């Protein structure tokens, strides 16, 4: 007997066929000018995210947890400000890095060299705030330990 390829749900097949047809209708127009460049960006964005960005931040996070050893429960105090700062850098990289500075300044009439300083200040506030929170919470916890249990 010949091996049979399972087809799967007919509804799913129809839905996906319709989806591909619409994507194809728009896709030929998307690829009309510079098909290689656009395809590179489209597939490249997915590959860059899945195979570079995601493994990179996951690995950094693992390294952080390993480095903290027994103080793992405090990971959030580093993780949260670091991730938020990295997120801002990721989104606003062209402005923060200064790579569009001259075009930005000449087009908008606004100073283009302020973004790095602002990002650094926000990063300082994020880490500083997190450090403050860590100190305050440790004190509260220590004070709670030292206080004799309340008698009811």
């Amino acid at each position: 007997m010949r091996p049979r390829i399972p087809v799967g749900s007919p509804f799913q097949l129809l839905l996906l066929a319709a989806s591909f047809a619409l994507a194809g209708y728009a896709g030929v127009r998307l690829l009309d000018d510079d098909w290689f460049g656009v395809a590179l960006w489209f597939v490249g964005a997915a590959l860059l995210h899945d195979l570079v960005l995601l493994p990179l931040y996951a690995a950094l996070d693992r390294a952080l947890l390993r480095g903290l050893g027994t103080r793992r429960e405090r990971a959030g105090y580093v993780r949260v400000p670091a991730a938020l700062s990295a997120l801002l850098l990721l989104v606003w990289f062209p402005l923060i890095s200064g790579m569009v500075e001259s075009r930005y300044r000449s087009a908008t009439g606004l100073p283009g060299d302020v973004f790095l300083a602002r990002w650094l200040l926000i990063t300082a506030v994020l880490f500083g705030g997190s450090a403050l929170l860590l100190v305050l919470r440790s004190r509260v916890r220590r004070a709670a330990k030292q206080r004799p249990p309340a008698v009811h």
Partner: protein
Amino acid sequence: MRGPGFTSVLGLVLLVGITVLFVTGLLSYAAYNPDLSPVNDKTPDKGLLGFYLFAWPTDPHWLYRFTQGVHVTLGITLIPVLLAKLWSVVPRLFTLPPARSLAHALERISLLVLVGGALFEFVTGVLNVQLDYVFPGSFYRLHFYGAWVFFAAFLAHAVLKTPAALRNLRGLRGAPEEKNDLVSPRPAEPTVSRRGALWFVGGGSLLLFATTVGQTLGGPLRRTALLAPHGGGEPGTGPNGFQINKTAAYAGITAADRDEEAWRLVVTGRTGTVRLSRAQLLQLPLHSSALPIACVEGWSTADQWWRGVRLRDLAALVGHEEDPPDVFVESLQRHGSFRRAALRANQVADPRSLLALFVNGEPLSPDHGHPARIIVPAAPGVLNTKWVARMTFGDL
């Protein structure tokens, strides 16, 4: 922590959010009136994708400011949600066997279109608002056709997955979470709860929102948009000190081009052509209207107080006394993609639509379009042509 519950919450947020992004994106496309004239249309091969186009209204006058502010601000705010969603489903990338059935194989190909499309749309949008034009081609074409490719895959994904996501969400409030392939078979000791992780994602969104939305709200709140391209401060002080899309220098407009002695506005219509100096324009009835500048990049200004000649009065001057027609506007600009723009009859007829000569009580500055500029309620910024040289009334 990673599991169907976390994925479902993020998925449902994206279902609503991306639908709003798609609708506001289509509205922005319609706002350019691409079916009116080739100069407004960066996508002449759109075919059926322009099926819904309609004459963009002039009411309410903040319409484009609102729809495009939502589009860009919401898009930026959703970035952490998208990243977290992709993180939560990454085990599926390595599912074995690669396909259980033909339908499953097609679904996995569709997911490549979905993920590639989502990232393509977010990346091109985020780069464009920062004037980083490194993408391969015209932003309008890439972002519009890319949106349709992405939305085709998004629709199929939403139909296939929303029922399960809703089921999972109901499950979160009762029965223990179903263990599927998103949950690690050998999970490390958790360092954060699902609730904590959702707060973390929400915090990222809140931070992006808080440092961006001020560029759309304007006024004193613009200072809070610390990293947004049109946040922080204004480009100057005084009546002309509000946000500029492209300065005169950037557009290649020289002082000689704008010289009031030499400059003439050429107006053509049914009864011929008239040439008007700025002094002659000042002799015509002047009217005022309070209108914002709202850019496709998502930033906008509060209402500015413009003063100038009504577009419909200019139409009447060249033989269109009744029912003002469309108008084709040309700038002194020698290059730049919107140096020529078409306005539809309803925009010309609106009494608030002006060829502005003054703003906030002073003559226009060079960067805001001196000697004269168009200002139309609810129109995208680039259709408010600056440094106007020629206006041709008539059906386009």
